[in-house]
């Protein structure tokens, strides 16, 4: 990979931008400079069809004048001065909030496992070879398995924040992903999807291909579920993660809570989950997909407990929302949570690595053995249609497995699952297997969960 500008170079770009903004009349200024480069290999129908790569960099500039905040960005370092002028002009439209850009200081945590030189050194040929291993592994499981989509991607990036208020911090990191979407047309048509992301070179492309193929093989010969109704579900980490991302994630943002848009508005100190369920956001997790020692406005990161022993303890804030509601920032500023280059967006509070913990029953089989009547769910479709203000969800699952008296019966045809995540969190049966980081792709959040079992989901065959 062609190395992007490193942390020190970005820090000096950010410092230059701050000086430029101050010279043009800003009372305070802060610059976020970021750069990244990536390589991606697309697989379609068992073939590598495209290998792509790119490099992007830019600077986002916040200024304060007369207590008013303005923002602008530039991808071209030569245009920082005009960005500064634009930010100052736009600040006139903003309300005088008495907001000060966050001050520097504080201790940055040491976090391991965020940069792997083997990813930084990865050539396109290596990524193509990995994609080939992914396809071969799927074929080895079943010759009829077709990898219709997926591939391998790897990237490295760096970011720096500097400000007139003493912030000066730079970070860098790497990440990679392998994904396989397999279709098997044998006795019936079945599908399998597996994905793995990591900050290190340890993504096992073969294992991803094999797991997706095995899932498709196992899902052959689905028969209709005979009887629906309310029952327990045991959800794969990626499936429960999708549901949580559309329900719990928007509910724990401080601004949404304060504005009454969150299902958990006004519920701090109340029980929102079973007494043995805890949820926290941890940007300091070693090797975490969204870990980093500084948030996107340069504040030291920390572990934020959100639900402790079933009781709601707090919400996530960046500096501006914290100022607005008279609380402290939780070091949760994220730029570009909605997608796109971070420097093009102002910071907002968002989750980094959201961890859900409940009592482990052991391995997946042990968790399944706790269920009298229910479904094992590998995938959910339509989680984004969940209602974040009520936590209601209605999704479909394409290859559920029936569970009876603790035993896994066969695979069933697609079903609808409807329920409420609040009720789900109060009826958690337990977890199985090791927690897994679910994230990447279109998702900005990383959700760290094992298999989760809970009761009270309405299933319609």
């Amino acid at each position, binding site marked *: 990979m062609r190395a992007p500008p490193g942390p020190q170079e970005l820090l000096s770009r950010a410092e230059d931008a701050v000086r430029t903004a101050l010279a043009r009349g800003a009372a305070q200024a802060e610059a976020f400079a970021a750069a990244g480069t990536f390589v991606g290999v697309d697989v379609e129908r068992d073939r590598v069809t495209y290998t792509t790569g790119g490099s992007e960099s830019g600077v986002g500039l916040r200024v304060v004048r007369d207590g008013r905040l303005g923002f602008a960005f530039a991808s071209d370092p030569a245009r920082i001065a005009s960005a500064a002028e634009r930010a100052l002009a736009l600040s006139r439209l903003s309300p005088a909030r008495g907001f000060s850009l966050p001050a520097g200081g504080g201790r940055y945590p040491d976090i391991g496992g965020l940069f792997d030189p083997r990813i930084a050194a990865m*050539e*396109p040929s290596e990524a193509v070879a990995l994609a080939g291993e992914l396809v071969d592994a799927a074929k080895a499981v079943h010759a009829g398995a077709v990898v219709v989509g997926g591939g391998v991607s790897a990237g490295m990036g760096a970011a720096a924040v500097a400000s007139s208020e003493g912030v000066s911090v730079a970070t860098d990191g790497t990440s990679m992903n392998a994904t396989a979407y397999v279709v098997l047309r044998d006795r019936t048509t079945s599908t399998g999807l597996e994905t793995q992301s990591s900050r290190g070179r340890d993504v096992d492309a073969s294992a991803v291909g094999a797991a997706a193929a095995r899932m498709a093989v196992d899902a052959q010969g689905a028969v209709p579920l005979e009887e629906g109704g309310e029952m327990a579900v045991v959800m794969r980490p990626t499936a429960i993660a999708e549901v949580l991302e559309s329900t719990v994630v928007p509910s724990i943002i401080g601004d949404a809570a304060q504005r009454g848009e969150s299902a958990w508005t006004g519920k701090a100190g109340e029980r929102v989950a079973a007494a043995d369920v805890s949820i926290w956001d941890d940007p300091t997790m070693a090797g975490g997909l969204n870990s980093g020692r500084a948030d996107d406005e340069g504040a030291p990161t920390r572990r934020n407990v959100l639900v402790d022993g079933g009781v709601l303890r707090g919400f996530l804030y960046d500096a501006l929302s914290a100022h607005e509601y008279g609380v402290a920032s939780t070091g949760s500023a994220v730029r570009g949570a909605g997608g796109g280059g971070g420097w093009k967006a102002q910071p907002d509070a968002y989750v980094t690595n959201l961890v859900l913990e409940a009592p482990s029953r052991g391995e997946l089989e042990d968790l399944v053995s706790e269920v009298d009547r229910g479904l094992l769910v590998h995938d959910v479709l339509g989680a984004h249609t969940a209602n974040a203000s009520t936590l209601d969800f209605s999704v479909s699952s394409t290859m559920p497995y029936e569970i009876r008296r603790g035993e896994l019966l066969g695979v069933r045809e697609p079903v609808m699952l409807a329920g409420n995540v609040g009720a789900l969190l109060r009826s958690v049966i337990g977890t199985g297997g090791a927690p897994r980081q679910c994230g990447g792709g279109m998702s900005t959040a990383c959700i760290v969960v094992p298999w989760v079992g809970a009761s009270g989901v309405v299933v319609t065959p």
Partner: protein
Amino acid sequence: MPVHEALEGLVDRAAREGASYADVRVLYVEMTSLELKDGELKQAIQGAEAGFGVRVLVDGCWGFASANELGAAAGAAALDAAMSMARASRARSGGEGARLAEVRPEVAEVVWEPKRDPRDTPIEDKLAMLREVEAAARAGEHVATVTSSYADARKRVELATSEGARLAWGLTRVVAGASIVGRKEGRSASMYARVGGVGGLERLEHPTPVEDAARATAAVERLLDAAAPSAGRMPAVIDPDLTGVLVHEAFGHACEADLVLAGESMLADRLGEPLGSPLVGIYDDPTLDGSFGSFPFDDEGVRARRKDLMVRGVLTSFIHSRETAARLGAAPNGGARAQDHASRPLVRMSNTMLGGGDRSFEELLEGIKEGIYVKGTRGGQVDTAKGTFQFGAEEAFEVRDGELGRPLRDVALMGSILDTLRNVDAVGKDARNGSPGYCGKGQHVPVGDGGPHVRVLDAVVGGM
């Protein structure tokens, strides 16, 4: 010359170094976006950016590399990267490599200038308009929160190909709207207002964002008191917004030739078959004046054109890139679009419409003894391989004895798209564009969709 001078030459260098085809696409964007939350300015961004992507085909294998800086050094580095990527791909490209259907290379520059250029209107006036939107949205008694937003973007694309095409095209897009949440006695309801299109501020005139916010607020108030629907099969009248989303999501995606080739479309091998009611015509048209998904050239430089996908119920065409057209032996029809400079072109829709018929809205309701009128969508899901869909309606009403009745909430419409198209028994004459939107298929691109009111016998209606 319409193409950036430091980058144009890359395509000839690529050809000299062994590429059978190469293109370079340069993109310049100037944008403004404003967001107001409960009356307070949350976001005001004005920015400009530029970037390019270079795409090469070597021995049937694609390489693509991009950067967001322009210049000879960045161009050379990106071309080197693209060539090495294409060569790396060869190891696993399988038998048949990519080929491109032929097009006549054009040298042209087409810029769609807006009638009322947003750049001529001060940002203060745009903010003032949002304050009016907010006030209109707040007119509802139970409205709790309002987030209103405005965005405009002016974009210029330059494209050079190793076949000799030298193209530049430009357009402006505007969109404005609001997200409105109401609360009453522990219940909540939400609606979106959104208007816009390709063009300038004239796209915010019919209706205006203020009028649309007033409509959405009235709907929020109705939804707060609406009854739960009874599930079952019944005749349904579908409004232009939901008709548009249905033809885009459940039918249009299955017409994308890359999905057809990947085995992910239930329409594969069915060209020429009568699949829908003879009343149904569906087309995708990037040349519709002012529609949100319009463009003069696709991102491979193929001139935009209307694609008739279904004519009188018969499946007649798919949407193609040059590569899928070559693979399926079809003529290229300008359906390759890229989200930005850093994304490679994919087969995409533009403005997907169901053609108009001859009935008035009242005539569609006539004769329905017990049925439902469904409007707009809250999203949903489709399986293009199986041809099934499920959509949550934004709003719905009972229909009894040919008359609109009580408002209903949380209505879902589901079923098989081909059954649904076969069951269309009357088509309204009131075809119009639905709300502007974005379609996500790994990449996000602006799209339009719409149609008239449509009556479907035997629709499957459920609660959410």
